[in-house]
């Protein structure tokens, strides 16, 4: 184990912690931006430090293709290659294959797929995924899991869950750098509480440095989503970090944090920036909209970032989707927003102000009090009273 996880404050199920990783001491809850190919699109590493990013995600599948894990290893690991002094996390590569490649197929051996380079059949085994991630050298590496769409039902879900448990042992056995890299296991089991429970127990028995809740954020209904998160966080050990994979909507992060999750990742904040959308306390602001053309106010008047301090909506409007600078500036703002949200979650939990923070957050996002029912349900389980920001008829 190469991490320390110290809980600094709690509010019911929510926790604020200090997560000490080989390259950085980070504060949870935290959002991790996705830097697929060894870069967050359009931002320099010094800007990412300015913004307050703590952990960046790299995609193993992409990095293994280009520049290859062998080259990254030869040049001293991904931290050095991209000159990022803080923490890194790599995924297993399995999810990317299944979602990006048409001809990916999962067998007991591993994920078979057609090479995008020469079209030949290739195989990614749990051993190989770990070997590649050992070469890339991230602070946190992920076990190869059997990924199925959350919307699928039936025996395939059960098969995938049991296979994920069999594969974790192969991953642990293959892991060559346990004192420098932390292997996280991934809880699978679809939307079935019984399967999720078996998976959690199986993984906890392996005493891993941290645990991820996988197979979510794939189009399932929101009530199913939070219930799975709530069930897993309740069953996972207190003293280990919990990472909900693929979650990136600010509202989802607030709800999951209330339920006791600590880490999140998603391409959403940077991807939506490239399409001209800014994250703001009220939800989203579409800078492409004609109404922005003559709006001389900042993107978010309450934001302290370099972009909001200097630029008007009107100026960003004339850049977005036409000039590279539009996506550079909006990505900057959106990540700043996510990091501010992470910091606010952390400090409000520590200061005992967490319910107040959640209410303020919901009030801004739902000024009419029309907080979605699933959020109300989740908050009830989390023990957060949000009646003050819900209209009596909602």
């Amino acid at each position, binding site marked *: 184990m190469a991490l320390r996880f110290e809980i600094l404050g709690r509010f019911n199920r929510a926790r604020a912690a200090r997560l000490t990783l080989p390259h950085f001491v980070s504060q949870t809850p935290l959002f991790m931006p996705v830097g697929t190919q060894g870069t967050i699109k359009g931002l320099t590493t*010094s800007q990412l430090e300015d913004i307050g990013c703590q952990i960046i995600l790299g995609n193993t599948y992409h990095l293994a293709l280009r520049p290859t894990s062998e080259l990254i290893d030869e040049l*001293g690991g991904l931290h050095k290659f991209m000159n990022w002094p803080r923490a890194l996390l790599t995924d297993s590569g399995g999810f990317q294959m299944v979602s990006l490649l048409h001809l990916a197929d999962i067998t007991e051996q591993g994920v078979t797929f057609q090479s995008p380079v020469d079209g030949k059949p290739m195989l990614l085994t749990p051993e190989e995924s770990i070997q590649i991630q050992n070469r890339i050298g991230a602070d946190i590496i992920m076990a190869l899991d059997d990924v199925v769409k959350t919307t699928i039902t039936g025996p395939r879900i059960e098969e995938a869950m049991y296979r994920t448990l069999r594969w974790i042992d192969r991953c642990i056995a293959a892991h060559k750098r346990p004192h420098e890299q932390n292997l996280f296991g991934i809880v699978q089991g679809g939307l079935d509480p019984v399967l999720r429970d078996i998976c959690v127990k199986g993984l906890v028995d392996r005493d891993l440095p941290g645990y991820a809740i996988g197979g979510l954020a794939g189009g399932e209904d929101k009530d199913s989503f939070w219930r799975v998160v709530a069930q897993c966080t309740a069953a996972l050990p207190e003293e280990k970090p919990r990472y909900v994979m693929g979650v990136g909507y600010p509202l989802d992060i607030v709800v999951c944090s209330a339920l006791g999750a600590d880490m999140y990742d998603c391409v959403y904040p940077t991807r939506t920036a490239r399409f001209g959308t800014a994250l703001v306390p009220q939800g989203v602001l579409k800078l492409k909209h004609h109404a922005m053309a003559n709006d001389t106010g900042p993107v978010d008047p309450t934001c302290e970032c370099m972009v909001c301090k200097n*630029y008007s909506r009107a100026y960003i409007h004339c850049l977005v989707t036409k000039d590279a600078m539009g996506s550079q500036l909006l990505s900057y703002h959106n990540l700043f927003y996510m990091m501010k949200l992470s910091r606010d979650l952390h400090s409000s939990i520590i200061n005992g102000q967490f319910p107040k923070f959640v209410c303020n957050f919901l009030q801004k996002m739902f000024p009419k009090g029309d907080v979605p029912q699933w959020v109300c349900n989740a908050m009830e389980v989390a023990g957060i009273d949000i009646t003050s920001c819900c209209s009596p008829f909602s």
Partner: protein
Amino acid sequence: MKFSVKAWSKGGGRAGLLQVGGCSLETPALLLTTRKGLPTFISPDLLSSLPTPDSRLLQFSPLHFLEGISSKTISEMGGLHQMLGLRDHVFAANPADSITSIPDYQSSNKIGASFETPSGRFLVKPGQYVEMISSMKPNMWVTLADEVPAWVSEKRNRASVDRTVRWLDDCLTLTIANNTGGAILGSIVGGSKIDDRKRCAQEVSKRNVSGFHIGGFGLGESMEERSALLSAVTEILPEDKPRQICGLALPEEVLQGVAAGIDLFNSTYIYHLTLGGFALTFPLEEIERHGFSDRLSDNVRDDGTKINLKATIYRKDTSPILESCKCYTCQNHTKAYINHLFNVHEMLAQILLEIHNTHHYLGFFRKIRDAINQGTFEEFRQNFVETRRDHNAGATTAVVATLSA
């Protein structure tokens, strides 16, 4: 705006001091070409990592804002400085920028100049142009010109001079009526006809302008005929006003312009290099014959003054673009990383390269000024040109081919 010449050098170069917008800038100087007021890939926080005050001069085309934002809105915000959050920078407006606002002489007519832009073709009349200037409030601005390439007929060339002078008068009259601020740089055209160039320079010098903009170069005239054309113009112009030029981009062309007494240049060269994956690497400390390191065996169009970071030889190269370079990119990243970024089409490649190239080209201008101040500009120019020529006989043509590719 105030301008004074501080030193002359053998070989024709002059060093001056341009005081504008609260900045004291030494000339010859480079104006950074922008897209809508910001360098193409360098955001304002990264812009501040470039040497100051050298990087404070920004050139833009008011035509960049014909779509997406109204002049009224820009005016309400207080002009470009406020809109861009760059209050300490100097903005220079030029309707043509040779990247996203290209003069289209075939569509220009007696009432206005035509430009090709990403938002389509626009015919701009002097009245409209001065209105844009009034709302954007640049520190200095170039008057509307009818720029034509070298190959047009004599009649068309004469018409371009007549129109440009007439539009200059229109701009001056409208400026008084609109109370437009900013120093006016009168446009001089005349294509590749010495007589027309002279006539235009004489007419413009008679007007009440703060400086001059020499347009219509880099449009098909040969490098040989250019020197005579440039000198014909600068000999007529009063010495105490700055001279800006558009269309001279390559280092050799800049040196040619400096020799002819030009003070201000633009950086479209950097833009094209950056998009092509090229990084400037000519040494700034000692430009001597055979001073370059000997690594010309590769066939990646390495002419000893720049390298192509897309080339596979940099795949494992963990050194910075230039060991001695103090720019953000060289201080933080390796060639191997930038090569990877180009391979996977990541925008950070252009960001890092534009930073290095801008930093390096600003350094080149500093060297030019030093040489003029030391009275050694002619040797400096000769050494530079010969070393490049020695390295690759086809260097200039290769660059031109790259630029037009």
